[in-house]
């Protein structure tokens, strides 16, 4: 992690910093908007700042805001955050061979700070996990440098957004930027036909079941969409079935 000096001194640490630097303005702009959205949602200064400093996951922060404000039970907020974050579970499967040699707390520290952008850049540069100590040190240093830029631009900009939000009237509706950010991430995940089906089914279910208490419509929508997609996936391809019918 970037907290240990040995990692910071490694030449790959600087390479990691430089690889992430071009992305930093985009990350910062998104962090700024998240900061404004947190403060505008009705969270207190302390709550918004704590969220900016600790949670470090924009989509789960933005998704949890309406739930926290509506007073949804803690488990619904956490379960929604978990589901929004499930893409990281997939990333962690990929990162496992790169990090598994490290001590437990260092693995968790690396996992914690490796957000979407760091993951993408790291796995693009190192397509194979290193097999010797030297290579492992280099990969760890690169990932740490990368995450250091990502973390500082995100958290710094989020805190700035919280500070500036006080000077922006509520009725301007700038909190909508947070929803747009989720729209962007949603579109980026729509890479297969069944994922599009999942999104459409979940949208309809979430609106239809909106009157359920405790924001349970979200949990229900996820369950319905995932179960439907898992059953659709088992169907043989449509063309194959047509042929069988003809024969």
């Amino acid at each position: 992690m970037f907290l240990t000096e040995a990692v910071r001194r490694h030449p790959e640490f600087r390479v990691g910093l430089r690889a992430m630097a071009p992305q930093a303005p985009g990350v910062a702009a998104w962090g700024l908007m998240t900061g404004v959205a947190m403060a505008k949602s009705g969270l207190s200064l302390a709550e918004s700042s704590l969220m900016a400093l600790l949670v470090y996951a924009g989509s789960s922060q933005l998704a949890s805001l309406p739930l926290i404000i509506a007073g949804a039970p803690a488990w619904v907020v956490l379960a929604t955050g978990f589901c929004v974050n499930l893409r990281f579970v997939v990333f962690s499967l990929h990162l496992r061979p790169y990090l598994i040699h490290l001590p437990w707390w260092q693995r968790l520290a690396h996992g914690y700070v490796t957000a979407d952008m760091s993951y993408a850049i790291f796995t693009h540069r190192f397509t194979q996990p290193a097999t010797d100590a030297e290579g492992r040190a280099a990969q760890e240093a690169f990932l740490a440098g990368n995450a250091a830029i990502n973390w500082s631009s995100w958290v710094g900009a989020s805190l700035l957004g919280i500070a500036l939000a006080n000077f922006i009237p509520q009725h301007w509706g700038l909190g909508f930027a947070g929803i747009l950010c989720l729209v962007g991430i949603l579109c980026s995940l729509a890479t297969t036909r069944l994922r599009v089906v999942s999104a459409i089914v979940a949208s309809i279910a979430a609106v239809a079941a909106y009157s359920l208490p405790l924001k349970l419509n979200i949990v229900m929508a996820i369950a319905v969409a995932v179960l439907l997609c898992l059953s659709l996936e088992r169907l043989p391809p449509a063309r194959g079935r047509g042929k069988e019918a003809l024969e």
Partner: protein
Amino acid sequence: MSGTSDLWTLAVIVGLAAVTVITRSFFFISSRPWPLPRWAERGLQYAPIAALAAVVLPEVMMTQGQLIHGWDARVFGAIAGAATFYVRRSVLATIVVGMGVYLPLHLGLGW
């Protein structure tokens, strides 16, 4: 922004931070090999987008528990943002264009 913080909210925020650590480290929390059941591995393909859609759509399409009637700036902003994503592949561009459509309609026309 309100001035008071309550312990429940602070605890939920700390819980969300724990969720970040757990999800980002999921498969290397334990160093023992841990095969995932196939249905769960497949489910991971569909759950994240379902969760986002379930949060976003009601925020865009509903006001106080009712589907919106008539023109609403949020719908136009969200459509413009999504269209921008398909052209530019950038979350930042999605926010900029979406707000560029939303703000004039919302503040100028009161939609």
